[in-house]
């Protein structure tokens, strides 16, 4: 029997059928019928954010930490345009989210009606796919297809634009299983290529696994298979910012993160390896540095679900199109059936070299004096929270890189950061999304004071829904990362990179009814962190840190991996040549 219902009801029904339990949103005229339906049911919880950008980042945080798609609901016009940053962020980092936007009624489209904007036009380049649904009869199948497209293949954000008259009108509801789709991305890798990779692994003298967010997007099985592969082969493994947690930081073969602010040993291993096995990473410019000097002597294999990522910037020798988990399963089987061979002697020598690089101890720092070093703050946070069921979000800047360097991730889906787009203002709303998905977990957003202010209004959301998210602000009173670049690149002319007129964060927290903590003395830090952890509710932690600390190691723009700047004594004045300066 076919069910008929209003479009607004279909939205709620389809969300329920798709297993959605939480929607992040903000109402307005063009979505009132949907809000009316939300009011009359109990299956789906709606979280009222304070800005639509917050709704989308919260949906991202929810998605990335649960492995389920996130859902946001916003009104037409300004609601939709406010969602654009979040959509672009999700597109760059391949996060599956479904954003529902209200639209003016179909008969008013194109008339410059109140709160009309060309939502599908504006969001076309920043979504994986989008729809303007003009008939109620088609709405439910589009909703179901949207979930399929957002979550299969390379995941990404989708937008469904729903005119108000379509929400009011009655139509036929189509069940998910009745919906046909032609979108069916290839998940199994080519066995010939996989065998070629297995062969390369058998003879490699200096192999390295270079892993990325694709491992995490592929699901927990992918991380599990990766761990098995690393354990069986004994090869070293590094990861991009987006892949942290796919292999445990405590694992023996872990080299740490690679890239612009990655670890010395990881970048050196990438530069000197003879077999690079890229698993779900995309040779981003933060990773490769100068392209013509990128890992010059290696055979490169690349496993990716997206054909357009393969050979885009770096030409690879063994391309494997497919889903990470599927390919790793086949790779392990092939490699095992061929006798589990590796060039043990050479690999052992390789480890000898790596251990030499490790001795550089590129993350060492000294906490001396009465000012807290940001690295120290994060080391203490790591120490005091490592035994918790812990999820970390970040904003964007130096603090983000320090968090990636000094916090350890043992499992996938525990690290939420804006990688591709680098969106200041991401972390706080993302932490709200994470906490909604994991009510009992410890959720911390490592923030910079400037980034945090970009979406600070969400403190109201955290209070309203009693979400005990911990906002750990490394307050250097600077747009620290910008200041660092100005120091290295623009003759220490600190143009607009000082955070002036900052609020009193403790009072700000209290104004929302939250708890504020301020700490400036390294000797008080542990107690202050414990106070934050022990408080059952949102906490705004203002950690006053060294103002002009630089984030090292650093591969300056336009430089190859083996020309890293290390720590305090680095020759920073001449680090970046003019040809590198044009790059960001």
């Amino acid at each position, binding site marked *: 029997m076919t069910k008929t219902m209003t479009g607004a009801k279909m939205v709620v029904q389809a969300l329920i*059928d*798709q*297993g959605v339990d939480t929607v992040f949103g903000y109402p307005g005229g063009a979505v009132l019928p949907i809000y009316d339906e939300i009011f009359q049911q109990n299956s789906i919880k709606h979280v009222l954010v304070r800005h639509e950008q917050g709704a989308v980042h919260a949906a991202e945080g929810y998605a990335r930490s649960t492995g*389920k*798609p996130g859902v946001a609901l916003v009104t037409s016009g300004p609601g939709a345009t406010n969602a654009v940053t979040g959509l672009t962020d999700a597109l760059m980092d391949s996060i599956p989210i479904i954003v529902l936007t209200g639209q003016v009624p179909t008969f008013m489209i194109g008339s410059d009606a109140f709160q009309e904007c060309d939502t*599908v*036009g504006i969001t*076309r*380049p920043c979504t*994986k*796919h*989008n729809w*303007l649904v003009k008939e109620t009869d088609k709405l439910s199948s589009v909703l*179901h*297809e949207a*979930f*399929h*497209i957002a*979550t299969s293949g*390379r995941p990404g954000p989708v937008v469904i634009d729903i005119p108000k008259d379509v929400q009011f009108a009655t139509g036929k509801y189509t*069940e*998910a*299983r*009745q*919906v*046909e*789709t*032609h*979108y*069916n*991305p*290839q*998940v199994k890798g080519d066995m010939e290529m996989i065998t070629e990779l297995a062969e390369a692994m058998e003879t490699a003298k200096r192999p390295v696994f270079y892993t990325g967010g694709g491992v995490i997007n592929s699901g927990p099985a992918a991380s599990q298979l990766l761990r098995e592969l690393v354990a069986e082969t004994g090869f070293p493994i590094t990861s991009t910012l987006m892949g942290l947690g796919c292999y445990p930081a405590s694992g023996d073969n872990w080299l740490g993160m690679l890239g612009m602010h990655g670890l010395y040993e990881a970048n050196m291993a990438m530069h000197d390896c003879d077999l690079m096995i890229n698993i779900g990473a995309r040779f981003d410019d933060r990773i490769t540095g100068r392209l013509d000097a990128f890992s010059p002597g290696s055979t490169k294999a690349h496993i990716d679900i*997206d*054909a*357009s990522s*393969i*050979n*885009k910037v770096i*030409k690879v020798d063994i*391309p494997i*199109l497919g889903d990470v988990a599927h390919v790793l399963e086949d790779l392990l089987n092939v490699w095992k059936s061929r006798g589990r061979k590796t060039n043990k002697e050479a690999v052992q020598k390789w480890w000898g070299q790596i251990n030499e690089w490790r001795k550089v101890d590129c993350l060492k720092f000294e906490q001396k004096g009465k000012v807290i070093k940001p690295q120290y703050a994060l080391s203490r946070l790591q120490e005091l929270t490592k035994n918790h069921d812990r999820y970390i979000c970040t904003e964007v800047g130096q603090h983000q890189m320090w968090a990636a360097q000094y916090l350890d991730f043992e499992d996938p889906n525990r690290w939420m950061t804006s990688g591709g787009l680098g969106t200041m203002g991401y972390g706080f709303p993302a932490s709200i999304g994470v906490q909604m998905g994991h009510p009992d977990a410890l959720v911390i957003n490592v923030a910079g004071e400037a980034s945090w202010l970009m979406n600070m209004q969400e403190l109201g959301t955290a209070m309203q829904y009693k979400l005990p998210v911990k906002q750990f602000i490394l307050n250097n009173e600077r747009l620290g990362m910008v200041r660092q670049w100005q120091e290295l690149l623009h003759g220490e002319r600190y143009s607009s990179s000082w955070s002036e007129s900052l609020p009193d964060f403790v009072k700000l927290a209290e104004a929302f009814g939250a708890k504020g903590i301020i700490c400036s003395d390294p000797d008080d830090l542990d107690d202050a962190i414990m106070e934050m952890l022990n408080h059952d509710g949102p906490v705004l932690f203002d950690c006053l840190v060294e103002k002009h600390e630089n984030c090292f190691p650093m591969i300056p723009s336009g430089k190859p991996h083996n020309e890293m700047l290390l720590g305090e004594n680095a020759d920073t004045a001449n680090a970046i040549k003019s040809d590198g300066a044009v790059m960001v």
Partner: protein
Amino acid sequence: MSPLKIKKGSTSHSAYDLRPTFSDKEERHTLAVLVENEPGVLSRVIGLFAGRGYNIDSLTVAEVDHLGHRSRITIVTSGTPQIIVQIKAQLGRIVDVHKVNDLTVEGPSVERELALFKVQGTGEHRIEAIRLADIFRASVVDSTLESFVFEITGTSEKIDAFAELMQPLGLTEIARTGVAALARGSVA
């Protein structure tokens, strides 16, 4: 999440040669892109080319299968082999795209373009224009005492050549359709 039914005949296999040989020489390729005939699909394709800085030398689009709801976009583009591979992969990523064929590398193909030429003139010029049109198998589809409109079909090169000859004879306006192309032989 509840799964959907994957339509029969949907291909999940990539048509892209992931192991191309790369050179730095610019090449011209004709791509046939079979798309779902949805509003916005052309804009997705054009937006891709604009957003990523690819060239469009010619583009034609029309519905080719009304029942199946399919349109065919023929794009002539140019770039290094690496860019061409990237263009095909990026096109293949668009959800509404069913199939991308590179007619330039996938065996022999035929390409045709239609153009209308307005030529104004009297006396000798007028006679010469008619004579050349005859050689090029262009037909007269409109005429006044001072002008002709010629219709010509052929490869883009033929149309270029015709345009060059008509220039001194009073050519005032050209409308071209852009390239339509099909692979030769029986395989679709």
